[in-house]
């Protein structure tokens, strides 16, 4: 069964550094998402992306965050200047159509640790 793959599985960075989290969505999916989960807390929506542009973003997704689909397979989340509170598990997800008939498929996440 096709799956969403994320790299790296764990990223450690110093406060103020830029990080790029990478995702390869399922190949025939058109809608892409980033969610995050702070340790022990709920999964929170960050951003949705369709047709090479952001469809919707949450309050968390401020100017420090950006997303990009640099080629036909990768989907990236960039944090320009990381803060301690950015430490979390970041999940990429994809959906074939973005509607309820096409559920979200999540990757296994990237654990980001900001020191």
């Amino acid at each position, binding site marked *: 069964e096709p799956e969403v793959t994320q790299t790296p599985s764990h990223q450690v960075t110093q406060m103020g550094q830029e990080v790029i989290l990478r995702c390869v969505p399922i190949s025939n999916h058109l*809608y892409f998402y980033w969610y995050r989960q702070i340790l022990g807390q*709920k*999964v*929170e*929506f960050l951003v949705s992306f369709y047709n090479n542009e952001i469809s919707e973003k949450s309050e968390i997704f401020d100017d420090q965050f950006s997303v990009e689909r640099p080629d036909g397979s990768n989907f990236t989340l960039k944090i320009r200047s990381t803060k301690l509170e950015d430490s979390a598990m970041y999940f990429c997800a994809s959906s074939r159509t*973005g509607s*309820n008939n096409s559920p979200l498929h999540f990757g296994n996440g990237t654990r980001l640790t900001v020191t």
Partner: protein
Amino acid sequence: QQQVKQSPQSLIVQKGGISIINCAYENTAFDYFPWYQQFPGKGPALLIAIRPDVSEKKEGRFTISFNKSAKQFSLHIMDSQPGDSATYFCAAGTAGNQGGKLIFGQGTELSVKP
């Protein structure tokens, strides 16, 4: 308005018992209610989902009950097994071709004792 409240936070059930997890929402625009199962080190995986035009949906040992007037829905796991031990998240979303944004509950850590 956008919150989904989930309870209990943790649940311990004996093997063979029934696990029940409850969720409540406020936003009446929500029309899609999935449940996700998450094992340690893994991403959430869709378990079962329901729309508000039905009051119950069953898939194997997993059943969602939905009460539209009360704005509540619940997950029932019949004949719970140790392999069901995981964190369960309810979620809510709205239809639309550019949607897919889900609001998640806080999660319930289920432990099924052998």
